[in-house]
């Protein structure tokens, strides 16, 4: 074998070794980092799922306990007129607080995501967000709603709305996202008029045009709202 040929074999071997190191480095950077991201993300998702399962169990337990307490109170009310009067007062207060199911005439509002604009960049204006639900609930309250439920979650006097992006968190419930159905029992005609008023819900109306956000409503002769199944927290409040 000539010296020239041995030299060329060494050059090829060196180039192959360098290429191997480069490929290994690239694989480490390009493959392992996303894999770690996925693992981290999946761990977060698993946490959310476990917490949501625990949340659902607690809410179910609360609903069962409230129903059992109702039965015990009713039994106690049969034994004394004073207890019966108290139970009647509490029943009325629970009705107003959203702790018991409610039915009556009302409106059903459906709101769904629009489409992302071509030049929207990272904006999420096409998604239904918690402020949309908050605005809708406030509009209904101001126009004769006596009880409201959002995707089956009953609104109470202490309800709060939060969330990020297209997620809507109501009180202690798990997040809900579009399509969202709002049911409101109350003065159906007033609520329909308010929902049909083009000057109401200005932000939603603007995004209806910009992102084709979809909102529709229809009056219903008899709607049924579920009872609130979470905590009505008043631990820090004392009466005077």
């Amino acid at each position, binding site marked *: 074998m000539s010296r020239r040929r041995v030299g060329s074999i060494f050059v090829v071997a060196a180039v192959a070794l360098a290429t191997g190191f480069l490929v290994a480095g690239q694989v480490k950077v*390009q*493959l392992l980092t*996303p894999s770690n991201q*996925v693992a981290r*993300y999946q761990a*977060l*998702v698993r*946490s*959310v799922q476990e*917490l949501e399962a625990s949340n659902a169990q*607690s*809410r179910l337990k*609360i609903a069962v*306990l409230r129903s*059992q*307490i109702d039965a*015990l109170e009713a039994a*106690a009310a049969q034994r*004394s007129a*004073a207890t019966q009067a*108290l*139970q009647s007062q*509490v029943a009325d*207060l629970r009705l*107003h*607080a959203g*702790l018991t199911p*409610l*039915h*009556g005439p*009302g409106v059903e509002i459906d709101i769904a995501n629009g489409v992302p604009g071509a030049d929207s960049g990272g904006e999420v204006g096409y998604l239904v967000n918690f402020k949309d639900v*908050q605005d809708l609930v406030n509009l209904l*309250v*101001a126009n004769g709603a*006596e*009880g409201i439920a959002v995707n089956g979650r009953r609104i*109470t*006097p*202490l*309800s*709060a709305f*939060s969330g990020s*992006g297209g*997620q809507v*968190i109501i009180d*202690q419930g798990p*997040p809900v996202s579009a399509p969202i159905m709002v049911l409101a*029992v*109350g003065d159906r005609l007033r609520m329909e008029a308010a929902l049909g008023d083009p000057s109401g819900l200005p932000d939603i109306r603007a995004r209806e045009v910009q992102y084709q956000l979809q909102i529709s409503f229809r009056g219903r002769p008899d709607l049924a709202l579920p009872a609130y199944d*979470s*905590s*009505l*927290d*008043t*631990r*820090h*409040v*004392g*009466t*005077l």
Partner: protein
Amino acid sequence: MSARYRNRAGGRVLGVWLIALLVALVATVQIRSQVEVERSFAGTDTASLAFLIDNLHRANDSLQAETADLMQRQLTLQSGSDTAADQVLTDEATRLRAAEGLVPVHGPGVVLVVSAAGLQALDLQDALNNLAVGGAEAMSVNDRRVVLGVPVQQTPGGVTIGGVQVQPPWTISAIGDANRLAQAADLMTQQMRADRRVRQATYRVEADLVIRAIVTERPFVYGS
């Protein structure tokens, strides 16, 4: 063509195939990895997930506290005594009257003062919602009690609460967990100060804040 030449050519083809196979393997792993990242990140980012987890932890703690409270109430009722039943019902009525804004209340909390021109009902609704998210259990604005059933509306004359005009400056009182409310108030006042319409936005924490304003209960006409 000699046998030696055919063997060399066959070896080259095998080498090319091996390299092609390796490249295809690496490319497939790379593409699948990226697709998985994109698919799992669709819709929700990690910051939103962290926010969700924090919120669910707090929510679950609150639900567990409510469960413990209900179980205690159930035990008391199961004792079978009329006095015990009356006490449970009286306590429940008091709690609900406070939640519905039907009685004056007191407790720890924060007081925000917002001096501004041009703020709308939507701004006030946002502020009240932020405090509710921050754990407010009772609120008032300029001595008008606010719960979710009380309409906060925009009129030509300004913002009204339950049909009564509330002129700025707004003094917003909120009773609840003072630490959480202070965090919410701090963030809110910072954001408000960045708003050109706001002249001044301050808050203070109070150990025992009193809200005397009450809401008059509206009888239900349509729902039953």
